[in-house]
């Protein structure tokens, strides 16, 4: 009797070597996909949506690229996941983490082919990762005490992060913007209070940081355009027709005159509500919901600036900034906390009118207005700036700093190599492989810049043989340079997260020796999937599809 099928019809099972190969190839293909975006000379990718409109995104942010891909390979999904987590936790290094994990697996594949058990490789990798972390810890610089130095550290980090993005032309300008914004937060990592407004038009250089709060809304007609020493009431209440909330209530009348009466009563009710709001002694009223013409007119009569339809985030942020509370009932004017600011005025950016609240009580919030040629540029600029802001806000909390330009990788590789020499047994092969994977990062940076990577990395290695060396790859001049002089720095927290999550992901994929895929659920065409078809040919011509169309 032949062996029975134990799985359902379309379910499939891959075992041992085949499973391992499928996951290695998948993971490496993903790493290769984003590899070319690494470093200051990395290239961008165009992503086209299959949805209506065929929207196009141009980016070189690893997390954004990977998020948009529709991936079928299970191991590749693990990598996409770590890049997402990296984005949430530290905001930058999303490409590096995937590339490092890919390189670790590439090395592991060679070791597995040389008949070393995956478990041995894992324990070697673990030792190496721990050793690499120690090497970094010994070399960190902490300038928390010295405010001026710390600021210049932040500037350098911001410039390093931005240098690989679309903003690299104006990186000085944007680095200053980002550092100013983050310094205002005073140590909080809540990026909510930094608002980014994108307005097409002008050039990237025209972007600026505003110390107040800018609301992308218009002022009602006939209302003052400029208020000094404003008292602001932030509200979330219905200002159209106040509907009756008691369940099952309905209006039933038998004559036209009654309709008119009820309408009058309704109007009276609204008038009362407006009177109550005015009684708070305010001169600015911001509501989350609609304000109908009638109440708006009443507000205009009372000389109060009324702003309708501020979205929920805007409301929350405004309440935070001005120190008021979000109100929904207006019967107790004495207990409601009002927000204050020195000046409210309407400003023009490009052709749009916006409302600016300046001189607010809480100095933490600020607004960055981005200007640029098109929506694509602005979107990418926002992503880049977001990365820089994330990294900076994390650095403010954990002020340890490292040099950049492949310097940390070289330091780690050197220590790990030494560990490999000291370790007896098969593990040492895995440790050596770890150091090779680390070296791949400067190699890729050099390759992407069109430099002779083999030559440069070898030179770098020789330089690092000396104690206390600051050498890294200077992509601009195409040679080995002193990172301290060039002012290229990176945050320790980002590097550590890259190292640890990449090792964890590689370990997870290595431990797998069987992949069981359930029958896919039948479903109509996925409308919003991103289209990208990529296949990869493994040695021996095995055809492994990585992405589905």
């Amino acid at each position: 009797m032949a062996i029975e099928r134990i799985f359902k019809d379309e379910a499939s099972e891959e075992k041992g070597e085949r499973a391992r190969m499928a996951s290695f190839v998948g993971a490496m293909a993903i790493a290769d996909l984003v590899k070319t975006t690494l470093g200051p000379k990395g290239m961008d990718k165009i992503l086209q949506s299959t949805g209506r409109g065929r929207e196009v995104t141009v980016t070189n942010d690893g997390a954004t690229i990977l998020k948009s891909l529709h991936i079928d390979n299970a191991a590749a999904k693990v990598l996409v996941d770590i890049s997402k987590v990296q984005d949430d936790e530290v905001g930058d290094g999303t490409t590096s983490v995937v590339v490092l994990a890919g390189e670790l697996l590439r090395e592991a594949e060679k070791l597995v082919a040389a008949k070393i058990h995956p478990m041995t490789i894992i324990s070697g990798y673990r030792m190496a990762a721990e050793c690499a972390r120690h090497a970094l810890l010994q070399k960190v610089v902490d300038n928390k005490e010295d405010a001026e130095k710390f600021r210049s550290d932040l500037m350098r980090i911001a410039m390093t992060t931005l240098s690989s993005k679309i903003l690299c032309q104006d990186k000085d300008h944007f680095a200053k913007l980002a550092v100013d914004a983050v310094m205002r937060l005073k140590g909080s990592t809540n990026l909510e209070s930094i608002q980014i407004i994108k307005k097409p038009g002008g050039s990237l250089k025209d972007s600026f940081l505003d110390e107040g709060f800018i609301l992308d809304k218009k002022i009602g007609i006939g209302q003052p355009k400029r208020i000094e020493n404003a008292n602001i009431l932030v509200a979330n209440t219905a200002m159209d027709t106040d509907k009756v909330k008691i369940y099952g209530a309905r209006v039933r009348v038998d004559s036209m005159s009654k309709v008119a009466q009820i309408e009058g009563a309704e109007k009276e009710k609204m008038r009362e509500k407006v009177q109550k709001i005015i009684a708070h002694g305010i001169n600015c009223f911001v509501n989350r919901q609609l304000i109908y013409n009638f109440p708006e007119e009443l507000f205009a009569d009372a000389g109060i600036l009324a702003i309708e339809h501020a979205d929920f985030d805007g409301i929350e942020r405004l309440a935070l900034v001005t120190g008021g509370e979000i109100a929904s009932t207006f019967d107790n004017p004495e207990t409601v906390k009002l927000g204050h600011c020195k000046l409210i005025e309407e400003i023009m950016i490009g052709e749009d009118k916006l409302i600016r609240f300046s001189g607010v009580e809480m100095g933490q919030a600020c607004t960055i207005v981005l200007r640029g040629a098109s929506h694509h540029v602005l979107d990418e600029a926002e992503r880049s700036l977001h990365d820089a802001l994330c990294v900076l806000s994390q650095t403010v909390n954990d002020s340890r700093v490292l040099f950049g330009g492949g310097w940390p990788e070289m330091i780690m590789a050197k220590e790990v190599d030494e560990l490999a020499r000291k370790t007896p047994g098969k593990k040492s092969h895995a440790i050596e492989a770890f150091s090779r994977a680390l070296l791949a990062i400067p190699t890729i940076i050099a390759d992407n810049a069109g430099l002779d990577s083999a030559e440069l990395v070898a030179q770098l290695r020789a330089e690092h043989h000396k104690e206390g060396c600051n050498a890294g790859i200077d992509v601009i001049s195409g040679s080995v340079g002193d990172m301290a002089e060039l002012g290229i720095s990176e945050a320790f927290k980002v590097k550590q997260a890259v190292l640890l999550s990449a090792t964890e992901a590689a370990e997870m994929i290595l431990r797998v020796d069987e992949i069981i895929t359930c029958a896919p659920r039948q479903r109509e065409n996925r409308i919003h999937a991103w289209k990208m078809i990529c296949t990869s040919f493994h040695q021996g011509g095995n055809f492994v599809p990585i992405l589905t169309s």
Partner: protein
Amino acid sequence: MALAFDEFGRPFLILKEQEQKSRLRGIDAQKANISAGKAVSRILRTSLGPKGMDKMLQSPDGDVTVTNDGATILEQMDVDNQIAKLMVELSRSQDYEIGDGTTGVVVMAGSLLEQAEKLLERGIHPIRVAEGYEVASRIAVEHLERISQKFEFGPENIEPLVQTCMTTLSSKIVNRCKRDLAEIAVKAVLAVADLERRDVHLDLIKVEGKVGGKLEDTELVYGIVVDKDMSHPQMPKRIEDAKIAILTCPFEPPKPKTKHKVDIDTVEKFQTIRLQEQKYFDDMVQKCKDAGATLVICQWGFDDEANHLLMNRNLPAVRWVGGVELELIAIATGGRIVPRFQELTPEKLGKAGLVREKSFGTTKDRMLYIEQCANSRAVTIFIRGGNKMMIEETKRSIHDALCVARNLIRNNSIVYGGGSAEISCSIAVEAAADRHPGVEQYAIRGFADALDAIPMALAENSGLQPIETLSAVKSQQIKENNPFCGIDCNDAGTNDMREQDVFETLIGKQQQILLATQVVKMILKIDDVICPSDF
């Protein structure tokens, strides 16, 4: 397909649409069943032990799970074959009863089936095989009892419990920080355990996970963690000595169940109803305030107006808290769940020393910690980790560790691990076989061989020579009369499991043998498989 004929020699149908059904009978049926069972156990075999590998499972929706927990693998495997489903059930019942050893039980059943196949080929009747297995399993279970050891622990001396949990965790991906996790699991179990009645209510331990941070950041919270935040962004983020009103009614005007309509036809009515409405909101908040509550936790949503009134009266509130969490909060704080505002009294309020909101990462993620509760018997294990898969796998591993700790509190007998218990049982069963008259003798001997499969798989997964290692350990056990020799999976240099501190619970091991035997017996007794053929 068998045909039946009536007295006139005409064929008639016994089964409905019998030509469309496939049927297997006799020895063919048994062999087909056995091979299906073996196929399932072969999948799990490589996951056994501290050096076991993981499986990657892709669900119908494309989500990926990476695990080496037997029960989880089988559950998500999308199995079609009937016998394979029995094996899935087997692992699940081990999971429900014991919580650990879900892989071992399937591997055990697989090797019992393998032995049975050989016996069937020699012409032994399946029922005799089944009976022989039954006898052998009884011998093995009794033998386990003999070699088991009691060990002492108490609220002060938790080290032995931690050691056992570490054995369980060492086969999982989290083995990097097994020490920390084992301690967390043991402390959590001891916090909710009733040591006098030897009872543990695992429902009181809530396992919550959040992506981000390191595995080392995993913590045990003596209280409840809820994935919710305050209903109004400006409510206080920290409340000390909170008196909590736990409500299951929304802060909204009432919705009577009877169908009704309120007709408004005059201006007066319109105004009265408006006043009524305002009063209603006011009353609700006032009732909470009157009862003395300083925090309201509600299962339902709030109207904007009510929300602001709560804020205005300085009464922080949390909305949309799930039913299970609500119950846990009620247990922990000693409060009562109140379904109507009218029934709110000061005695029904729960008490907690500290309620605080904590935010994570760069995104807007907040969670609510309720700590220092009146009744500290509800705890939360809060897991952090690199990605979602890691968190899910950690949750499963923690669950296993919790179950092991619970079993030890119920029954503090242990047997040593690393395959030593199986080898020792195998020797005992082998010896007993010779004394047993009748054909069952062969089945009993087969059982002894099947027991060897577990240490064999352990050795194989650890990269050792399986047969060589097993025979060496076996002879050592007999020579030194020492039932604690096992497979040295971690390369620690000794075979004595007492020195390696590898042990498992007695009831877990016994249950494994009993459950595996039962399922195998059931499979052996099937001699006819009728199923609709789908082709």
